[in-house]
């Protein structure tokens, strides 16, 4: 049994302006000690998924409207708020994107760390403070005893994120969710913080869900990657396999959108056409269809389920040997994936049903 099992999670936001279909049936598992990457563009549902499993969705708008979330066999969605609170911080921890706004500006670091520790253990204030000093040292903050008494605004961005990591790992959680932990940081600091995260979680055996839109971040950090789009998982594979043999058109598009040092000079980047989907309407058909260069007519009406690339073998959900699965009716061939474009003779992406091509405004000019 995996540490975390999510099945068919559906999350919607009910607002005055309508319903937002943020997550539309996401299933995946995370093993003890495994690092899973959750990748996708803004609005694809990756953050919402993690907030949902922590039961921290913004209320009253956010609702889990379907699915199951099991931590070590316990159904999280059935727990009372008090039971959930007991798990948060202790078994389940989360760090957020913006370290500047994620720490309370009027409390010292000491107060914020000690309150976490004492909320879940019987330690005295002195013991908790000592533990906090230990933790700050562990994340590489110099002179932790003095820095404890400082306020968040006295730290730099990278230091603040280290503090957040220290607070999150204070009670040895089984699962850490890192939601875009380095997006708000400078590039050089990013590498330091990521390395710290990797080292600490490897030492303590903590499983990690690393959420990001940056493929470079997950490349060195994760064992497996889930690619999400419009509230669905569209591809999942072990990290090396995903980069070597991307199979879903979206993943192919993502990899080809990144300028590479080893690219042939003069070769154009191949952007993904179109704009992100409007999630105020429940999706019909494959959500990526409007932007897909490989789409068939069937893609407009059928939403393909997540299925193994290579059939005939037992499906493995976690670990280095996890099965490479994609949700696609017409996946690119390996050569097409390498090129970034369909290469089949005469293949044209199927137009949307009932649409008219209308790209230029034509004006009559007297001869």
């Amino acid at each position, binding site marked *: 049994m995996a540490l975390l099992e999510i099945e068919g999670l559906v999350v919607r936001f009910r607002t005055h302006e309508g319903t937002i279909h943020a997550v539309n049936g996401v299933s995946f598992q995370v093993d003890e000690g495994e690092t899973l990457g959750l990748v996708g563009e803004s609005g694809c549902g990756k953050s919402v998924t993690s907030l949902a499993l922590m039961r921290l969705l913004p209320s009253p708008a956010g609702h889990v409207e379907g699915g199951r979330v099991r931590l070590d066999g316990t159904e999280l969605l059935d727990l009372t708020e008090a039971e959930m609170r007991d798990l948060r911080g202790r078994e389940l921890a989360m760090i957020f994107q913006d370290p500047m706004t994620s720490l309370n500006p009027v409390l010292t670091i000491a107060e914020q760390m000690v309150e976490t520790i004492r909320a879940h253990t019987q330690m005295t204030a002195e013991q908790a403070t000592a533990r906090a000093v230990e933790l700050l040292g562990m994340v590489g903050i110099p002179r932790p005893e003095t820095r404890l008494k400082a306020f968040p605004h006295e730290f730099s961005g990278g230091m603040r994120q280290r503090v957040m990591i220290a607070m999150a790992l204070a009670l040895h959680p089984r699962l850490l969710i890192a939601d875009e932990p380095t997006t708000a940081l400078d590039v050089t600091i990013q590498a330091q913080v990521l390395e710290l995260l990797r080292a600490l979680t490897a030492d303590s055996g903590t499983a990690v869900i690393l959420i990001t839109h940056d493929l470079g971040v997950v490349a060195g950090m994760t064992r497996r990657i889930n690619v999400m789009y419009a509230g669905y998982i569209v591809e999942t594979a072990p990290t090396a396999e995903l980069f070597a043999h991307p199979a879903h058109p979206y993943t192919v598009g993502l990899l080809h959108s990144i300028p590479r040092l080893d690219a042939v000079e003069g070769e154009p980047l191949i952007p993904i056409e179109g704009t992100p989907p409007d999630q105020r309407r429940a999706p019909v058909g494959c959500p990526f269809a409007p932007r897909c260069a490989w789409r068939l007519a069937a893609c407009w009406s059928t939403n393909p389920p997540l299925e193994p690339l290579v059939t005939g073998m037992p499906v493995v959900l976690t670990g280095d040997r996890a099965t490479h699965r994609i949700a696609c009716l017409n996946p690119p061939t390996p050569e097409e994936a390498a090129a970034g474009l369909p290469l089949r003779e005469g293949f044209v992406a199927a137009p949307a049903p009932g649409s008219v091509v209308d790209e230029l405004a*034509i004006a009559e000019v007297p001869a």
Partner: protein
Amino acid sequence: MAAPSIAVTPPVSQRASRGLWRDAGRRLLRNGPALIGLTCILVFVLGAILAPVLSSYDPSLGQLADARQTPSLTHLMGTDLLGRDEFARVLYGARLSLQLGTISVVFGLAFGIVIGAAAGGLGGKVDGVLMRIVDVLLAVPGILLAIGIVAWLGRGQIQIMLAVGVSYTPIFARLLRGSLLALREADFVLAGRSIGASRLRILVRHMLPNALTPLIVQATLALATAIIDVAGLGFLGLGPGDPRVAEWGEMLTDSARFLQYAPYLIFFPAAAIVISAIGFNLVGDGLREALDPRLRR
């Protein structure tokens, strides 16, 4: 025969500032409480303008024999202690309050804009000195400043308008100065300068429309307070001092002794003050929401 050629339609431009106002106007009209406020203001303004039409009585003449009559069909709001028709006095009082209130706010805006624009626009020493002066004005709280100025200048309509206007000057000055200072560093201003727009052009077409909106909101809210402050001065016996002119605050003071016997003499002018103030407060709040550019669709 004409050969079709492809032309590029020019980008839609120049609609920025006017669009904001039209947008705001539409949003204001959809705001329930703001509409109630507009109605209150309308009642107040129409009452003031149409006073001679709505009442045939002279608000400053009355016969003692008619004194202190309760409201009836001949005297809709009764008569006061000198036999004057209360309804007429409330209507003409609206006129006076409207005049005094509006012009006070205009004075406050005028002084405030000059000081604020100079401080925010010129910066440096000018800013420092002007803000110190504003701080001195702010050191004397609220109506006390107006009272002090009336003590200095004496009683009278212009004196009241100046006094109340000066007591609002600090807030307008600070608002405008703050907006201008923030806008000077704003990205779109720097962008304008980078394409060579002159400083005056930037000031007028880009900075002022943004800086003026909080002033407009504040001015509307200030109208509510101005009506109250003018009445307050009248109540304290520092009003225009012209016995021929009906002023709501003075009407309240005069009738205070008769609270037990003729409460309607206090009720009607009081209600008039409250309704006008509510009107301007609601519209001011509505304007603030309507003009918030972050809410634009």
